[in-house]
């Protein structure tokens, strides 16, 4: 316990965006070859002044093989300052690292040696299942009163997916979060509007629907998730389903506005059955300020990213019939000042930057190409080398000046879209404060056989922290 508040906690997003630059990045890395090789958490030096800038300076192997590390998160963050449950003397110190396939949850201590985090606790899959009824833990968020995780399904691989909590201090699973889940069945991501006591959750599919790869029959039948769910955060009750339409398949990453007085957020949809486009939707509560707090939430498509026509010869079997490469929007991220939204097009190999100062009318202000199913665009430091995989998990520094992203999605799906196999890499972009992005030529981390997924930054980043003060 600290004597003063943890210096990485900021009451407001405005203050957080003035935070010092990060020195280390943590990256979940998947070992796709199976067998006895475990997944790992990589530590990358992102300190510009360091001699090892852009190098992997640490690696922590997981105790078992086959976890499928995917998303992970901090034990505590700025939400610890929330006034109704303040406990700012807890430390942002532990990384909660779940295995999406194994359902095993690792707790890593980054304090004694930040470059060599130590596994201090492993919660076995059976414990998670017994205590919560859930398996396949996905998103990790540090909440005002506990650590929350979403999960894709139940122990038998079907639904429902949902949310469960870990105790802040002991990391013990506390049980399922939902008191009344209503029609919600699929799970994936979740997020909060702390200023409105509202939670939002999104839909992918059950473990049985995703673990053997995307199922074309289910996909073309519109059977993957296409709803957003709105919850009463305090009563843990389902309030509202927002249906995007069955043609909008896989409603994934949720990025609410950081300012707790703003009642809106962005969610990415992987693919439209109509034209293979990807899209970004804005959920919002009309007249949130001044209006009744019982008001309904609404959702509206604000960005559409079209598929690109392609020579079927260059496409994997799954896509040949369509003669086009879909953008496959697999991640989005919103800067802490709620100004720029980044969109990872894993299929077309493009990272886009939108100015969302007016969230209803986003403006495309930046774009870079790297990798891609057809494009195989190189990184500027190795202009002759074709790259595979594409921009995927994207993370932003708190000041919004640096963008880090990795190139692997999910082992079973990597195989379908990049059948030749993916060589892992992590790239970084520098952001022009008034819009525009470009590659940092000094930063291109290749991870070889290990496939990088989510990136978390030391001290916090744009998707770690939730705030209770504007």
């Amino acid at each position, binding site marked *: *316990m600290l*004597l003063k508040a943890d210096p990485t906690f900021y009451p407001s997003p405005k203050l957080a965006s003035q935070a010092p630059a990060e020195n280390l990045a943590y990256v979940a890395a998947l070992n796709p070859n199976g067998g006895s090789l475990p997944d790992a958490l990589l530590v990358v030096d992102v300190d510009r002044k360091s001699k090892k800038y852009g190098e992997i300076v640490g690696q922590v192997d997981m105790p078992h093989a086959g976890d499928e590390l995917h998303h992970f998160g901090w034990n505590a963050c700025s939400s610890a300052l929330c*006034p*109704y449950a303040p*406990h700012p*003397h807890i430390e942002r110190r532990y990384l909660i690292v779940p295995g999406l396939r194994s359902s095993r949850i690792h707790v890593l201590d980054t304090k004694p040696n930040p470059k060599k985090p130590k596994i201090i606790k492993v919660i076995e899959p059976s414990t998670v299942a017994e205590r919560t009824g859930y398996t396949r833990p996905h998103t990790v968020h540090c909440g005002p009163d506990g650590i929350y995780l979403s999960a894709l399904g139940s122990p038998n691989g079907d639904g429902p997916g949902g949310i469960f909590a870990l105790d802040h201090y002991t990391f013990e699973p506390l049980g399922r979060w939902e008191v009344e889940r209503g029609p919600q069945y699929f799970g994936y991501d979740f997020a909060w509007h702390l200023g409105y*006591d509202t939670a939002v959750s999104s839909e992918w599919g059950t473990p049985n629907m995703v673990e053997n790869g995307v199922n074309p029959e289910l996909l073309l039948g519109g059977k993957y998730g296409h709803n957003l769910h709105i919850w009463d955060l305090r009563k843990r009750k389902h309030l509202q389903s927002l249906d995007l339409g069955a043609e909008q398949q896989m409603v994934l990453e949720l990025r609410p506005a950081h300012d707790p*007085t703003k009642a809106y957020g962005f969610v990415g949809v992987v693919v439209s059955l109509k034209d293979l486009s990807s899209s970004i939707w804005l959920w919002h509560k009309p007249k949130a300020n001044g209006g009744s707090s019982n008001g309904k939430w609404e959702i509206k498509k604000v960005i559409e990213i079209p598929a690109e026509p392609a020579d079927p010869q260059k496409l994997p079997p799954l896509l040949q019939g369509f003669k086009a490469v879909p953008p496959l929007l697999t991640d989005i991220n919103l800067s802490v000042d709620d100004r720029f939204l980044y969109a990872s097009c894993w299929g077309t190999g493009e990272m886009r930057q939108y100015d969302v100062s007016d969230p209803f009318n986003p403006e495309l202000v930046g774009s870079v190409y790297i990798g891609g199913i057809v494009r195989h665009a190189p990184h500027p430091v190795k202009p002759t080398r074709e790259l595979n995989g594409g921009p995927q998990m994207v993370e932003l520094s708190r000041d919004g000046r640096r963008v880090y992203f990795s190139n692997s999605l999910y082992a079973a799906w990597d195989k379908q879209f990049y059948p030749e196999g993916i060589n892992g890499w992590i790239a970084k972009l520098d952001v022009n404060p008034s819009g525009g992005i470009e590659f940092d030529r000094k930063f291109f981390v290749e991870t070889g056989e290990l496939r990088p997924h989510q990136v978390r930054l030391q001290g916090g980043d744009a998707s770690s922290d939730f705030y209770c003060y*504007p």
Partner: protein
Amino acid sequence: MTQRWPWTVLALLGAYHGLNPGMGWLFALALGLQEKRRSAVLYSLLPIAAGHAAAIALAMFAFRALQDFLPIRILKWGVAAILFALGAYRLFRASHPRGAGMRVGARELALWSFLMASAHGAGLMLVPVLLAQPMSAKTHTMAGELPMPPHPLSLSTLTLATFIHTASMLVVAGILAILFFETYEQIGLKLLRHTWINFDLLWAVALLIAGAVALLS
């Protein structure tokens, strides 16, 4: 309580409780910022004060009720034991409420404040003051106060004690909340980051001191 010092201690403890962000001023500030209205800060402080008053009144009146049944020695030891246990618990394990939120009405705020104060032993912290000064016979002579045998506190004295303590708490909490609200753009929230000392630890120490006072009185 015929002497002045117990009242001063009650008021000082009120100020101390008011200073603790976990006792409500921070909540009032956040609600004001969320609604962007200074009046929301002030309106939030009243139910917070009411909840706090209820919590400390409950502790003091319960103590007073027990005085009729239990010998003072037992009471003393009991109060000290609870204070030590609570202090030690707070020293070694931080905790905080679950299930609260930002969209709260006056009733919920009062309940929250009541629970926070009770869980933190805010009322119990005051009991040693009553123990140390259990006489309140209003017997004055020209020569001054006469020493009187121990006599339980009157209900009106306890009510006044609750009022004094809460008023002091409310004034300090109010000043802090408004100060932070008015300056939040420039310095308020920044100041919060740097000045938020570990009140849970201080609080634990205060509980232990109160326990010691109960024993020694």
